[in-house]
């Protein structure tokens, strides 16, 4: 299933990006190579020899709308700078300006080359002018979406590594602590306590197996909203379940059930991110969240159980290996 979803995401991205770029091309959304009528007001009278001059750019609403065939905000006045050199005059828009579409897309698209939105100014103002009307020709823009999906792929490949490496510290801390707990026999004690509750959900786990204790720790951390601790504990629980799995590349029913528990994630204390977003409002919502999360987790676990018996997944479970650790219980 994940194979199809994954491939589907990639193929659909390509398809949509392609269609949207072809549509831009057909509609000439960005009017490449054509000049938008603008009025430039000089802060001090125009000086033909100055390399740079501060200006204010006015764009009329009707001009904009007929040029780009897009909605324009009523007041379009932008701060900018006029650069002059042998190559001609270049108009640069200050970065803090909030630009209407499609200008903001053009700015984002050209951001790698130009730090600010830039346009070639057609026509020549006369010395001493305080205002000048001419055409602004923006940089050509092609294949916006194609570029965007490429950029997004690179960005998030990096993000993924940042997230994973960021886990090293807490993983090391918790895996170290858990190793002490195991050596001290704490996990065995915990297993005995939680076994009666968890056994019905995980009938595949032999009695007294440490996996049960790790699952209990993971669930507790999830309930208390301890995201930092929940992930290492869940990973440790998976590792314990893997000791019962004869094919380490294929998930067993117990592993899928644990995953359903983790995605449903019964949470009594809401996650920090949500608290940050909602502020004090969160107080009213806690009760509702507890009910909703209980329902969703229950449904997830039931779905995992039911699906494991359907004909698509019934025969793909790897056989369990006989377990030695829990034999004495």
């Amino acid at each position, binding site marked *: 299933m994940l194979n199809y*979803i994954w491939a589907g*995401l990639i193929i659909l991205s390509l398809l949509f990006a392609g269609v949207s770029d072809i549509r831009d091309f057909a509609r000439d959304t960005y009017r490449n190579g054509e000049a938008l009528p603008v009025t430039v007001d000089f802060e001090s009278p125009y000086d033909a020899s100055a390399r740079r001059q501060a200006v204010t750019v006015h764009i009329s609403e009707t001009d904009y709308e007929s040029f780009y065939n897009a909605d324009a905000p009523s007041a379009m006045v932008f701060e900018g700078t006029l650069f002059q050199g042998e190559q001609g005059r270049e108009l640069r828009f200050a970065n803090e300006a909030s630009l209407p579409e499609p200008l903001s897309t053009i700015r984002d698209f050209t951001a790698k080359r130009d730090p600010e939105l830039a346009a070639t100014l057609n026509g020549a103002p006369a010395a001493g002018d305080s205002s000048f009307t001419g055409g602004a020709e923006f940089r050509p823009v092609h294949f916006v979406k194609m570029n965007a999906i490429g950029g997004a792929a690179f960005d998030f490949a990096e993000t993924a590594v940042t*997230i994973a490496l960021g886990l090293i510290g807490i*993983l090391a801390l918790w895996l170290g602590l*858990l190793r002490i707990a195991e050596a001290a026999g704490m996990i065995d004690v915990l297993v005995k306590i939680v076994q009666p509750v968890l056994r019905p959900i995980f009938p595949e786990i032999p009695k007294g197996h440490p996996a049960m204790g790790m699952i209990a720790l993971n669930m507790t951390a999830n309930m208390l909203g301890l995201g930092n601790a929940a992930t290492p504990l869940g990973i440790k629980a998976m590792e314990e379940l893997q000791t019962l799995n004869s094919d380490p590349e294929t*998930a067993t029913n117990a592993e899928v059930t644990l995953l359903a528990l983790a995605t449903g994630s019964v949470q009594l204390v809401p996650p920090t991110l949500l608290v940050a977003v909602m502020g004090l409002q969160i107080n009213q919502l806690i009760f509702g969240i507890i009910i909703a999360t209980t329902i969703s987790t229950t449904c997830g676990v039931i779905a995992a159980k039911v699906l494991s018996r359907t004909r698509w997944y019934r025969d793909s479970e790897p056989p369990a290996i006989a377990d030695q650790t829990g034999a004495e219980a």
Partner: protein
Amino acid sequence: MELFRTILNLVSYLVVPMLIVGFPLYGLIKKVPVYEEFVEGAKEGFKVAVMIIPYLVAILFAIAMFRASGAMDFLIDGLRPVLGLIGVPPEMIPMAIVRPLTGSGSAAIVLDMINQYGEDSILVKMAATMFGSTETTFYVIAVYFGAVNIKKTRHAVPAGLVADFAALFASIWVVRLLFS
């Protein structure tokens, strides 16, 4: 409710320090060489984190491309009438689609909705409840299964999505019940 929350909060503050001190302390009592055991276990941390990388890259870049291409918006528009038929308010559809895919993306949607509909609106309450009641399915699959090298996920995705769907309907229902 207030008291319940205070107690829960106190517990969640105390639990971590108690475990961090409690495990080694209990180990000492049981005459475990605590330092040696800790270091031995902690060694795994790096290995596990590195193991997760390929899985996380695979999931995150595909989802990022899907969002950047505009396909996600199309999916949201396409599902609007379908989900509307079964009683999902149209404003909740972006949240319903994005929640299983990305955590930061769905937090951004809640923020957007706050700006658009106001903090007190019932829609924001639904979205926030949904945010709080389920995890980012694909992220959890990448991390939990990636750490132990499971590639064939079998029914993990459908089961996770059932949980997300249940969370969507439960949030809508529970917020309507409590606030209107």
